[in-house]
């Protein structure tokens, strides 16, 4: 006899997925009860990989595997919350990333404010699997969702006077405890030359691992410039401004001898603190050699033809 299951009996996918997570968590919970007294963090740790993480590929174009979702969302340099990379996820868990507005202004024909939801509708998200190389000599392979920055810039039409793009991170001291630190010239700001900004690799990310972009990873919307050190890829952007002059940037304001405006990944230009010749891929034990332009030289080296990259670091 054929008895179709009424649709009300079918467990929605989201529900059974979260149930599976719950069962997994319960197992971890039981197993770690004995340890709970000395390591309460084990219990509060953000959930590991949700069962459903979709990506278009399992590796980057060089054949290196993606970093785990868990590592990506739990190891963050985001000083607006804390300088403790593992502490960002917890502090950012209630930070609202939606709705999110970005104001595009300056030397453009049509300055406008965009809602990220509308941007996602206008520019259907594509996936980019990029290496992220932090100036601190660690790196990850991350599957982002988003769209090229050039699409947004073309909408507002930069004038011929525009030579640079300046980005600014949201400034909400009540929700971002790190902003109380007096040692930093907040808000975070970054910049690109217009031709760098218009390059197809330069990306605005609104999602991660096939899902949404969590606050600790830079949600509502963030920049990803894969051939530059990670600090150029500014998070939680609220302002994009086209300028004629090279904009000031956060880290080069703090220590200009260490962090330049260009900050292209370059194993030949040393940093006083970290090796730029080698790096540790998160999840790996041995160091690996750092590639010029983080492995994107073929696509971007021409942007810097004739420039002394040791001087323009």
């Amino acid at each position, binding site marked *: 006899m054929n008895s179709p299951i009424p649709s009300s009996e079918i467990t929605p996918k989201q529900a059974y997925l979260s149930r599976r997570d719950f069962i997994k968590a319960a197992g971890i919970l039981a197993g770690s009860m004995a*340890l709970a007294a*000395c*390591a309460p*963090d*084990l219990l509060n740790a953000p959930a590991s990989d949700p069962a459903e993480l979709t990506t278009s590929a399992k590796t980057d174009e060089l054949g290196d595997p993606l970093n785990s979702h868990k*590592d990506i969302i*739990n*190891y963050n340099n985001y*000083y607006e919350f804390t*300088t403790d*990379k*593992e502490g960002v996820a917890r502090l950012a868990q209630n930070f609202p990333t939606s709705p999110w507005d970005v104001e595009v202004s300056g030397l453009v024909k049509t300055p406008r404010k965009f809602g990220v939801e509308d941007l996602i509708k206008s520019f259907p998200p594509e996936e980019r699997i990029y290496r992220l190389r932090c100036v*601190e000599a*660690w790196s990850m392979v991350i599957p982002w969702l988003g769209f090229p920055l050039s699409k947004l810039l073309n909408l507002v039409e930069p004038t011929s006077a525009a030579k640079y793009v300046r980005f600014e991170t949201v400034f909400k001291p009540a929700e971002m405890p790190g902003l109380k*630190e007096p*040692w*930093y*010239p907040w808000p975070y700001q970054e910049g690109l030359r217009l031709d760098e900004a218009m390059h197809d690799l330069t990306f605005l990310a609104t999602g991660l691992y096939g899902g949404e972009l969590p606050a600790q990873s830079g949600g509502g919307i963030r920049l990803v410039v894969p051939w530059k050190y990670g600090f150029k890829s500014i998070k939680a952007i609220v302002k994009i401004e086209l300028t004629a002059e090279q904009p000031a940037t956060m880290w080069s*304001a*703090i*220590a200009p001898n*260490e962090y330049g405006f260009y900050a292209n990944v370059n194993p030949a230009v*040393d940093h*006083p*603190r970290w*090796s730029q*010749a*080698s790096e*540790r891929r*998160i*999840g790996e*034990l*041995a*160091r690996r050699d750092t590639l010029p332009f983080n492995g994107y030289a073929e696509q971007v080296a021409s942007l810097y033809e004739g420039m002394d990259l040791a001087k323009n670091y």
Partner: protein
Amino acid sequence: MKKARFTALQLLVHGAGWLPLAWLVFDFLTDNLTANPIQAIEQRSGIHAITFLLFSLACTPLASILDWKELPLRRKALGNYGFLYAAVHVATFFILDYGLNLAAIWRDVATKSFIILGAIAFLLLLPLAATSFRFWMKRLGKNWKRLHRLVYLITPLVVVHFFMAKKGDLLNLSGDIFQPFLYGGLAVALLLLRLPPIKKRLSRV
């Protein structure tokens, strides 16, 4: 009745000395050392090393201020724990971080003055740790004390090493400088307390 073998302070010192190592091993076994465990071991062992060096330096002035005669007796043990964590720090750098790849180590050390400062501090610590046995104390006599004054040089080296290892700029007063500031301030205070005019005043209190 037999006299207790250890004083409460002694138990405290040795308990505190091994606790961070036990904690580090526990975190290692429970995969709780961040996504970048090697760097976490380096950073944590470094902080522990400075902390115990400062504890050791604090004994003498605190003994005068608090009139606590047992404190200076625990100086050496605290210093040795400082060395233990410095050794973990250095071993992690050589073995875990660089896999004993001497060419890569040399390439990076040669271009990073903060590593050179740290290396000098560690080399200077070696003879202090090596002569911490009673045999050497007897054998060196007065020179033992002279030799161990090297800690007055080691401490500033270590503090500067820490400052430079952090992502900030001291001269600009910006960046990640709070923690090195705290440790640097304590180190300066503990060294100043040893200057003869200040020391005299302390012991009169």
